[in-house]
């Protein structure tokens, strides 16, 4: 029976992943040793095998956004964190991603955001890609928002943003256009630092 085989396979596959030494991680990220210790402990508590797969990732994310459906957005975030695209996030990938997001420079953060929006990684954000992301974000709000979210809201939102960013009207947003737009927008630059975390 296929289910049995699956279970057998899983049992064979209990991989254990050991991260690099803590000193190396300290060098590669902007976290201190103590912060890394705390983060690793939390990480390993939730994922004893040392690897996060997408389902676990989605589950964790869902706990923070109980009202809506955060699986789509979690999927995109997962793809960005998973630098080598092997389907799992190791602790290094996790920590490096977090280092960029909480301690990185504005440029690095904008790069990360661009990578998030550029779903297929070809260096261009198309309208469809942006629509996907925006829909995913709206999904996280869920149905019970006030004022309620209309069907067209994501579409309209994408139109607005695209208008702002796509300077040469070629239907795609390149990394330079993206960076330029964001750096010139005071709101965005200020908001980027809101999420810096002190552990």
């Amino acid at each position, binding site marked *: 029976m296929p289910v049995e085989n699956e279970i057998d396979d899983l049992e064979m596959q209990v991989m254990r992943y050991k991260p690099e030494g803590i000193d190396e991680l300290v060098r590669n990220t902007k976290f201190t040793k*103590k912060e890394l*210790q*705390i*983060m690793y*402990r*939390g*990480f390993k*508590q*939730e994922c004893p095998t040392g690897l996060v797969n997408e389902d676990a990732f989605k589950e*964790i*994310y869902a*706990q*923070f956004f109980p009202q809506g459906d955060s699986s789509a*957005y979690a999927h*995109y*975030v997962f793809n960005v964190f998973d630098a080598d695209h092997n389907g799992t996030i190791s602790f290094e990938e*996790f920590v490096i*991603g*977090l280092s960029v*997001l*909480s301690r990185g420079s504005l440029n690095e*953060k*904008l790069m*990360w*955001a661009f990578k*998030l*929006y550029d779903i297929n990684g070809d260096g261009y954000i198309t309208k469809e890609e*942006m629509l996907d*992301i*925006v829909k995913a*974000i709206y999904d996280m709000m869920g149905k019970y928002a006030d004022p309620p979210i209309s069907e067209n809201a994501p579409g309209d*939102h*994408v139109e*607005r*943003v695209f208008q702002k960013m796509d300077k040469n009207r070629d239907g795609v947003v390149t990394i330079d256009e*993206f960076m330029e*737009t*964001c750096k010139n927008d*005071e*709101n*965005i630059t*200020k*908001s*980027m630092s*809101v*999420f*810096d*975390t*002190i*552990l």
Partner: protein
Amino acid sequence: MAAVAAWLPFARAAAIGWVPIAANPMPAPPLQERQKGEDEKLGINVSGRRFETWRNTLEKYPDTLLGSPERDFFYDDETKEYFFDRDPDIFRHILNFYRTGKLHYPKSECISAYDEELAFFGIMPDIIGDCCYEDYKDRKRENAERLMDDQVSEAGDTVQPMTLREKMWRAFEDPHTSTLALVFYYVTGFFIAVSVMANVVETVPCGPKPGKTENLPCGERYALAFFCLDTACVMIFTAEYLLRLFAAPNRCLFMRSVMSIIDVVAILPYYIGLGITDNDDVSGAFVTLRVFRVFRIFKFSRHSQGLRILGYTLKSCASELGFLLFSLTMAIIIFATVMFYAEKNVASTKFTSIPAAFWYTIVTMTTLGYGDMVPDTWAGKIVGGICSLSGVLVIALPVPVIVSNFSRIYHQNQRADKRKAQKQARLARIRIAKNASGAHFINKKKKEQDREDKIKQGIDIEEEPKDSRFESQHHHLLRCLENTTGPDLHARYIKDREFVEMEYTYNGLAAPKAQSSPPTPSPSQSSQGNPVESSCCSRRRGKYQFARSVSDTGQELNDIQIAVPNKTSSKTHLNASEPPKINSTNTTVTTSAIITTPTPGTTSDTEESMMTVSTTTSPGNSNIVRISTL
């Protein structure tokens, strides 16, 4: 939620993705100073076994004892750890709950001990993980059933039926309560047996009536005798039914119960038979009615617990039985159809129709094989073979379920009965042990008192081990109680009120050890005769354990005993018998001592009635403490 608190920084960081498309600036983040001691380790000492964990781990669940400031009550400043005087083995599981978020129930622990620990640490049992929840619930249910059983039987023991009706009902339900009930039980059982036997014997051929040649069954030969027997049995059953109906607390419910329906069905044929005349048309129906007389045998289920259990098992296995029936029916129809079509073309075949083939299929599947119908064609034989093989399987499947159900219920019942039987012996043993420790306690108290008396009197004492602080305070407390409830010091003849050996039955009903003969009036007279002495010497009475005056209830006995010569007119000690009672029932005062040693009945009423000249015969049924009225 708290379990993923470690991931919150990540969720916040990932929110950077929203920023480029946000129309408005984000709100400012909450001010966060670095919280001190967030990753601080706490030491928890549970009965000597040391556990350590992060503070964060415990605070994941702030509505429990360990996660809330409530744990500060248990903080030991000297050793800088939290000390709990609880079971360390169970604590391990509780701490794991904080660590992993899942509460497990260890099978080796007693369910009530585990529940207690959970309650102590403020954890809801519903959080138990799926892996252990079923087991937990099962054991909890067993425990609750057992407790309920005990309670019910205890209630049964102590409740005294008041009215005649209740008494009768109890007699019917539980024959062991009185001899009459037992007699009734056996008599009805006997008559049921007689009736059933008569029904059976009726049909046995008895030989021809004198003068005739026909071989008659006994029922027709001795028709009158059998009729009389039947009448007698039915009268007994009717009387029994009416009595039960009268005694039942809820008549409608009783009439709908299975047993009463069986009773009715058992006696109805007789009455209907009386009503029907010897008409040929109806006599056929009448004969059919007689069949229902066999239901009398079910009346035995009141007499046999095993039968009741069997019935209960069948009821509880209704779904399995239903499944058995259903699958058998399916198989029968399939095989009968195939057989019919296989044997259709055989000349003078017995398989004339599918329903006719049903009979063959049933007989074959249950491996009876009468042989009255056999297939002739080889196809039919093959089908017949398959039929018999599958029959064994289909029948064998649900049977173990039914059997195990029966076994479980039967053993449960056995255990309940055993427990009840053992309970009496156990309680008696416990009572004896308590008596012993109670006597020991009283001894100690007396010794301590004597010591103190001697000290006050300046007499040298041998070095004896001093009571612990707790014990001495306890003794003092009891002495105060004696003081409060003691009789008037006028009455010299009265023995000292003291805590005596427990003479009481487990129910706490007093049974006085001995009754001193009541020449009470005269001593009271004599005590009355010295009113002056008694009133002013009441405090100087020797060796009285109590000073009875309203203002003196709190007075230290030591003071009293200083000025008093050793008058031991009524100093009887442990074997103090009850002061005689006059017209009052003993009441018990139970102090919350180490062991429940009921004080000797507060015959304060009786003594009081003796004190005052007027006979205040106070009934005093339920006085706990009476302050004297001098």
